[in-house]
Each structure stands twice: as structure tokens, then as C-alpha cells.
């Protein structure tokens, strides 16, 4: 009953394809899908339910399955081939994400220029290089990855740095080439990316180690001074020989010196810089307190009377450095894990010389006018014009255009875009730093430099704190002046010492290091603590469309007409290479298996053949338009108006069904956006795609709500347009940019916080401050909610520590403070802050397995 089906389907918005494909009109189909997955068999490799079991025949010696995807099948057979099935016993019993195998060749790892740049020579002619791995998720992965020498002969050693997902491989160049073990890692489910340590990463690594050294020394000093302090305090109660007491005081002063003079130096440096910039900073009162306490302590040791605070000072230095060390470590983990290969264009190009021979040269050295050969699946190394061959080019990340575009001789192609289908030859017009992609990257760097720093809550608090403490010291001096000048100075000094903000200094770094660690577990890599604070505030959130609001690849959005025909379509498209055909074959399963005979592909139009004795055609309006009755033409026009491609299905010369194929909205996108709007954010869309498509997406996201969901929705935006728009908007308030492509990268770098979603281009990942290792935009809401929770923790930490300071001030003003009391109060307040920071759940941990593929 085509007409009935059609009526229902037309009212359905662009829907998650896996649901929409089989349940065309059911808005409540989500629950149906959930029920169905209950009964689905579990994938042999990853343990997730197989809703559409992978259909390809098993490789030689492989298992029948079931497998949820091709990647899982490859990894499973790889593990069995190499006797590595112990992996299944070691790993985390929860279902893992499906294997990320790509099947690529990794020839770029063999490039001599690349090797000399990013690998090191070892003794005995061995070489070593660092690779960043995708897909590492549990302890068993460590075991499996480090078995690489057993899988690939010639690899001598493989060591994984789990928190950074970084693998160090040593190999014998005479026995194995890097592309071989690169491909082996890929088949094990861990696609490798070359790791080129950027300057920033090196700097962070050095800073982290430096902080660790200083913290260790401060800790040793603090511990030993504490021992003397204990003796002195008990001596003060039970009596102690004068010689011993001055000996102990002198010794503790001596031991405290390395901590004060060396360990605490980064604190002084920050304080000095802040004073020079006339900006409030928490390190100013901290440095003041440390300096005064040390000075008065040394004076009192020499004088032989008065209080010494060395135990509190050293403990303070140790705790503050510890907090900073923890925060820096989390930040560096996030930064390194997000630092997937910085190389955007391939480093080598296949140049065809006059005699027709192919030479491999560095991409940057290709001369203008040279003929370059590009194989299917490879990335174009230069900008140029197509000379020979036909293909389709995937430029999604450069232009925002979701579908691969067909190119023929004479058409321009850009470096960094992917050659999808055929072997082609390109005449170079620009190479190296002159290419469009390279210039966009330069724009990214410039935009990042123009970004203003984020105002931190701690600095605002520090300003007030400094004023309050100085006022308190003056008050103490005035109150105690009648008791003598000596006494008044002593009280003012001890007030400055006991209010030295230890817990206050710990409040932010500890909360942030806990937040960053939790966020990383929840799939968000946040590259800086201050970004968490920025994310907690309401802002204008700008979304890219392709790959962000939509999934960025072709899917069957809906089916109109006789559902029986799906099986025939799957039979015809089973071996399709065109993205539309692949989408049909993938999204219309599971269907009863039919065989197609006499299959003819008509390039650019469709495919036809005999299925079950009937002549079936699947194709575009151009191929089957004349065979379509009126309702089918109207439906096709409607699908086109939505920015999707209509696919007609004709049986024996009459169109009986249609499929709408295109880049569909991500599941739950509308709900996420509504929640974001409800949380006080304003939303906007900037897309490189056509305005009509953007309008349709906005309309289907907004639903029937009276208020428009977006303050602005613009199509046809070039990367420069996006950058200019974001920079202009930033003048009016904080802007978060959510995107995935290189066309978003400059805008990501310019935004207050740039958020790169999973699967995005490498340039966008390194430009953005936050990177999702989970797919979809539903987690964006969790990210912002987590940031708000983190800011609440910081605020409460401030409250706790200011409370402690208030108590200390009151005790000092009334003359009841003593070094012992300070030594007890300070750790208690710091402990409160530590416990509070690490106890609170800010970011929800990883989602249930059923969401892993959403």
C-alpha cells in the first residue's frame, strides 16, 4: 500500500537511519530498537549486540561469527592466527567499543623524510619511533599491544604509555618496514598515528618533570622539618634543654631552606609576573606568606626566642606544588591523547616523470606543473587540476560538503582531500605551504594567538583576599599597639603567615585535576584547566552542520513504498562502491538474502539487474524518472527539497518505492540542543553547505516550538567567513564553537573554547581546546553540565578555605595563635579541600555500551 506508507513517512523528520530505515514512520521506534537489541546475538569480539551482523564471508581460517562489524572480525581472526586469544581472558569484562580497524596501508610511515624526522637510531642499527594509538581502552590492550614483537617479526620491543595512548616501537630496519607493523597494529584494532611532539608538548613535559622534582624535594623537607617540629612542640609542653631546642630550631631552618629557596621558585615567579602586570594572583599572598614566615623564622632562630613556622611553610610549598603537578599531569595527558598526527597532507607524493616512471618524493618539493599520481583511498598531496582518470573526491572536512564530488579531467582538486574511487593523475598548481590547506592551518595559528586569556575565578578571589589580609594585618597592628611595638609587629606578622592561603591555592588545581581526569574517562579530553571554568558559563554555542549536527556520511533516512523491495535493493547494491549504494546495502539490512543476476552498473545513475525473476532498477531521477507515477515524482521533489538524494526503485518498468539517502541528523541532536538552550545557552549554526539544506536542518531541529532554537543559521560559509563571524561574536561574550572539519579549525581556535567532535579532521583536533573521543553531540550537554559541577566544587572549596582563614584571623587578633595551632589548622583545611575535590562526581563516566555507536 504505497500511498498509506507515504503519508506517514512524509511527516517523519530526518530520523536516525538505523531506526528510520526499518520503521519508516514510527516516532516511538527507539523503544522498538532497544527491544530488538536485547535478542540480538553478542559480537564474538567486542560483546556488543549485533543488530545487523556483518555479512561478508569470513576470511580464510576465520570464524563464522557473529560479528557486529568488519573491524571486529579482522581483529578476532588476527588474534586467533597469532595465538593471542588470552586477550579475551585479560580484558575488562564489560563490552568494549567495536574494533576501530581501518584497513589502510600506512605507506606514509615508510617515507624516508618522515622516518628521519620522527624516528631515532638505536644501538645495533635498530630504530625507534613513537605512535599514538586509537582504540586503547583497558589493561588487556596494554598486554596485546606489547605483544607486537610476536606478531611482526623484526619488531624488537613495544612499550605502551597507557594514560597517553603512546606506543614506543623499536624495530630492525633490515627485517621489517614501519608500514608493516603500522598495518598490524591497525588489524589488531589500534590504528596508529605518527606522533610528532610539538613544541608545546615538549614544554609541558619539561614543566611537569621540573614540578615533580621540586615537589619531591619540598616533600622531603616538609617531612623532616615536621619531625623537628614534633619534638619542639612536645618540648614546649614537657620542657626541653635550651641547647636542644636551639639546635632543633636551627636544624629545621636549615632543612627548610631548599624548599623555600629552590622548590617554591615557580610560585615567586608567577607572583612577580602578576605584580608586574598589576593583576591579582593567588601566588602574591602565597609568596608574601612564605617570605615573611621564613624571614621571621630565621630572625627568631638567631635571636633565640619567638615562634618559628618552618613546618607549616614547607608543608604549604609541598601541597601547592603537588596540586599544580596533578593538574598539569591531567592537562598533558589530554593534550597528548588529542595530539593525533599533526601532519595533514601526506608527506610524500608520487610524481610521474616524462618517461612515465613514478618517483616518490616529499610532497613539499613537488614542482608546480608536475604530474602527480594519486591512488584510490589516498589523500591529494598538492592543489591542482585533474589530468587523467575519473574519481570522486571527499572534501567534507575542507568545504563542509558531505557527499564525495565526482571529478573529471580539468576539474580542480585540493591538497588534503581524499581520492575516493579511481586512480587519477593531477597537474600541480600549488604545493607545500602554498596549498589551500596549508594556508588554512596558518590562519588557525594566527587565530589562536589573537584569543584573549580566560579570566579565572581564583584570580578574582585572590584580589579580594590580598586586600582583606593586608587590612587584617593593619588591624592587628593597631589593636596590639597598646601592648607594645614588639608585640604589635609580631601579631601582624603571624597574621600574614597563618592566613597564607594554602587551601585556597589548592582549591582550583585539585578540583580541576579531578575534573580533567573524570572528563577523560567520560570521553572528553580537555587541554586546559581554565577551559573548564569557561565552559561552566552561559555562552553562544556555534555548531557546524556537516559531521557535527549530522553524521557526516550517507545514510538511508527514510523509505517510502513497498518494504518488500528492500531485499531486492540490498541484493543489487551488495557490491556497490558508490556511497549511496553502500548506504543502501548497509542501512536496509537485515533482509532475507536474495541473489541478483545480470547486474549492470550505470555510472552516476544507478544499477539494474534481475532479482527473483523480476527486472529491478535502483537509481536516480535521471535514470528512472520516466517510469515514476505522479506520487513518486512528488515524493522525489520533496526529498530533494530537504537536501537529500531520492533513490527510485523500479520493478518491471514501474517505480514502486523510494529511499531518501543523505547526511542525516545525529540521533538525539534535537533533544541535546533543546537542553542546551534550556540551560541558558544561545545557539547558532554556521555551515559550508547550501543555505537551503541548512534551513531544512534548522527547521527539523526546531520542531513546532514557538521560539526559534537558533539565533542565527548561515549556510555557504567559507572557513574565513566562519572565523570572522566567531571573532565578531566573541566581542559580545563567550563563544563556544563545536565542529569537526578543517573548515572549522580557524573558528575553533578563535572561539573562547573550541570543541572538536569525534572523527573530526586532525587540524580541528589540534586547534580545539576540547576534543571528544566519543561520537555525536549528545555528550556536549554532559560536558557543559560537568564543567558547571566542577565550578561548583571550586566555589565550595573556596568557601571552606576562606572559612579556615577567618578562624585563623580571629585567633590571631585575640592573641591565641601559635605555630602549633597553625600547624594543625592548615593541614585540616587542606585535607577538606582534597577530599571534597576527589569525592565529587562532576563528569558522568563512560556511557553504557548501547550508546557507544550512537
Amino acid at each position, binding site marked *: 500500500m504505497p500511498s498509506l506508507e507515504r503519508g506517514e513517512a512524509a511527516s517523519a523528520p530526518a530520523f536516525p537511519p538505523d531506526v528510520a530505515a526499518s520503521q519508516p514512520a514510527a516516532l516511538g521506534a527507539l523503544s522498538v530498537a532497544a527491544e530488538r537489541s536485547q535478542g540480538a546475538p*553478542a559480537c564474538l569480539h567486542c560483546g556488543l549486540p549485533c543488530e545487523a551482523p556483518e555479512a561478508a564471508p569470513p576470511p580464510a581460517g576465520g570464524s563464522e561469527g557473529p560479528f557486529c562489524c568488519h573491524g571486529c572480525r579482522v581483529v578476532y581472526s588476527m588474534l586467533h592466527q597469532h595465538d593471542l*586469544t*588470552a586477550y579475551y581472558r585479560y580484558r575488562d569484562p564489560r563490552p568494549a567499543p567495536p574494533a576501530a580497524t581501518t584497513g589502510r596501508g600506512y605507506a606514509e610511515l615508510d617515507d624516508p623524510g618522515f622516518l628521519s624526522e620522527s624516528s631515532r637510531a638505536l644501538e645495533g642499527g635498530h630504530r625507534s619511533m613513537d605512535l599514538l594509538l586509537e582504540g586503547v581502552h583497558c589493561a588487556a590492550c*596494554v598486554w596485546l599491544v606489547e605483544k607486537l614483537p610476536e606478531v611482526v617479526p623484526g619488531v624488537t620491543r613495544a612499550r605502551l604509555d*597507557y594514560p597517553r595512548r603512546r606506543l614506543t616501537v623499536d624495530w630492525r630496519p633490515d627485517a621489517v618496514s614501519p608500514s608493516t607493523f603500522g598495518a598490524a597494529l591497525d588489524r589488531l584494532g589500534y590504528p596508529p598515528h605518527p606522533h610528532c611532539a610539538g613544541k608545546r608538548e615538549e614544554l609541558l613535559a619539561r614543566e611537569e*618533570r621540573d614540578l615533580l622534582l621540586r615537589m619531591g624535594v619540598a616533600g*622531603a623537607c616538609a617531612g623532616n622539618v615536621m619531625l623537628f617540629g614534633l619534638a619542639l612542640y612536645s618540648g614546649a609542653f614537657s620542657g626541653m634543654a635550651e641547647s636542644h631546642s636551639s*639546635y632543633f630550631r636551627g636544624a629545621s631552618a636549615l632543612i627548610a631552606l631548599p624548599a623555600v629557596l629552590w622548590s617554591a621558585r615557580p610560585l615567586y615567579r608567577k607572583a612577580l609576573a602578576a605584580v608586574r602586570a598589576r593583576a591579582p594572583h593567588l601566588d602574591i599572598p602565597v609568596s608574601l606568606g612564605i617570605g615573611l614566615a621564613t624571614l621571621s623564622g630565621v630572625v627568631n632562630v638567631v635571636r633565640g626566642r619567638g615562634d618559628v613556622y618552618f613546618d607549616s611553610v614547607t608543608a604549604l610549598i609541598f601541597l601547592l606544588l603537588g596540586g599544580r603537578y596533578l593538574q598539569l599531569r591531567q592537562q598533558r595527558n589530554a593534550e597528548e591523547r588529542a595530539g593525533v598526527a599533526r601532519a595533514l597532507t601526506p608527506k610524500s607524493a608520487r610524481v610521474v616523470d616524462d618517461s612515465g616512471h613514478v618517483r616518490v618524493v616529499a610532497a613539499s618539493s613537488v614542482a608546480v606543473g608536475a604530474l602527480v599520481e594519486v591512488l584510490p583511498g589516498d589523500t591529494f598531496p598538492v592543489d591542482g587540476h585533474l589530468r587523467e582518470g575519473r574519481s570522486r573526491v571527499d572534501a567534507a572536512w575542507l568545504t563542509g560538503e558531505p557527499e564525495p564530488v565526482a571529478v573529471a579531467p580539468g576539474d580542480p582538486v585540493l591538497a588534503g582531500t581524499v581520492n575516493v574511487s579511481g586512480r587519477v593523475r593531477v597537474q600541480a598548481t600549488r604545493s607545500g605551504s602554498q596549498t589551500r590547506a596549508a594556508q588554512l592551518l596558518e590562519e588557525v595559528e594566527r587565530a589562536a594567538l589573537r584569543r584573549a586569556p580566560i579570566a579565572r575565578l581564583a584570580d578574582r578571589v585572590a584580589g579580594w583576599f590580598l586586600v582583606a589580609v593586608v587590612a587584617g594585618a593593619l588591624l592587628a597592628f593597631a589593636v596590639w599597639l597598646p601592648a607594645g611595638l614588639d608585640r604589635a609587629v609580631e601579631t601582624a606578622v603571624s597574621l600574614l603567615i597563618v592566613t597564607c592561603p594554602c587551601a585556597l591555592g589548592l582549591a582550583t588545581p585539585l578540583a580541576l585535576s579531578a575534573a580533567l581526569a573524570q572528563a577523560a574517562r567520560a570521553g572528553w579530553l580537555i587541554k586546559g584547566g581554565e577551559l573548564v571554568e569557561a565552559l561552566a558559563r552561559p555562552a553562544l554555542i556555534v555548531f557546524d552542520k556537516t559531521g557535527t549536527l549530522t553524521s557526516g556520511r550517507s545514510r538511508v533516512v527514510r523509505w517510502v513504498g513497498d518494504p518488500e523491495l528492500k531485499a531486492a535493493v540490498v541484493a543489487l547494491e551488495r557490491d556497490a562502491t558508490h556511497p549511496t549504494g553502500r548506504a543502501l546495502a548497509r542501512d536496509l539490512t537485515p533482509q532475507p538474502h536474495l541473489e541478483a543476476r545480470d547486474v549492470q552498473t550505470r555510472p552516476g545513475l544507478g544499477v539494474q539487474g534481475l532479482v527473483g525473476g523480476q527486472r529491478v532498477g535502483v537509481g536516480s531521477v535521471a535514470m528512472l524518472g520516466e517510469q515514476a507515477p505522479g506520487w513518486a515524482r512528488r515524493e522525489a521533489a520533496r526529498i530533494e527539497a530537504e537536501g537529500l538524494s531520492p533513490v527510485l526503485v523500479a520493478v518491471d518498468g514501474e517505480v514502486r518505492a523510494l529511499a531518501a539517502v543523505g547526511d542525516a541528523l545525529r540521533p538525539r541532536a534535537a533533544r541535546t540542543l533543546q537542553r542546551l538552550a534550556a540551560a541558558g545557552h544561545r545557539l547558532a549554526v554556521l555551515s559550508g553547505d547550501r543555505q537551503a539544506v541548512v534551513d531544512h536542518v534548522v527547521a527539523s531541529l526546531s520542531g513546532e516550538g514557538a521560539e526559534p532554537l537558533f539565533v542565527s543559521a548561515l549556510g555557504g560559509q567559507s572557513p574565513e567567513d566562519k572565523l570572522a563571524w566567531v571573532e565578531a561574536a566573541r566581542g559580545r561574550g563567550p563563544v563556544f564553537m563545536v565542529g569537526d572539519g578543517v573548515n572549522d579549525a580557524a573558528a575553533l581556535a578563535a572561539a573562547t573554547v573550541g570543541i572538536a567532535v569525534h572523527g573530526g579532521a586532525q587540524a580541528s583536533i589540534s586547534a580545539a581546546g576540547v576534543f571528544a573521543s566519543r561520537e555525536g553531540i549528545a555528550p556536549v550537554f554532559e560536558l557543559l553540565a560537568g564543567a558547571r559541577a566542577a565550578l561548583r566544587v571550586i566555589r565550595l572549596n573556596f568557601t571552606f578555605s576562606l572559612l579556615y582563614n577567618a578562624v585563623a584571623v580571629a585567633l590571631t587578633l585575640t592573641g591565641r595563635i601559635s605555630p602549633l595551632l597553625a600547624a594543625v589548622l592548615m593541614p585540616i583545611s587542606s585535607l577538606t579541600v582534597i577530599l571534597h575535590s576527589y569525592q565529587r562526581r562532576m563528569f558522568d563516566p563512560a556511557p553504557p555500551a548501547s550508546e557507544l555507536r550512537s
Partner: protein
Amino acid sequence: MSVLFLALPTALLLAAAFVAAFLWAARDGQLDDLETPALRVLHEEGDVDPTAADRSVSPASEPRR
């Protein structure tokens, strides 16, 4: 003369030796990755012949969930 005057410097010397050991270890990079060794140690008994492994725990015969 109290024994303290001798015992203290000795104790501090010992402490200094440990600090020196720490500084060496940290500079050597041994403290750069504190998580992986903890995961690695779980498996180092590892190299069991998988054909001898109990079939009932192999995933092929018992889909996990």
C-alpha cells in the same frame, strides 16, 4: 654531649641519600608514566599456551555478557 648531636646529621644524611635517589629516578623518566606498569604487572605471568587454555572461558564457546 647528647647522642642527638651525632644521630641527627646521620639521619639527615640518610634522608639526603633518598632525595638524591628520587631526583635520579625522576630525571631518568621513571616517574613519567605511573599507570601503565600497574596494568602491565597483571599480565606478566601471561605467556600461557592458549591451546591449553580452558575452552569454557574462551569467548568462542561462551559469548560474554
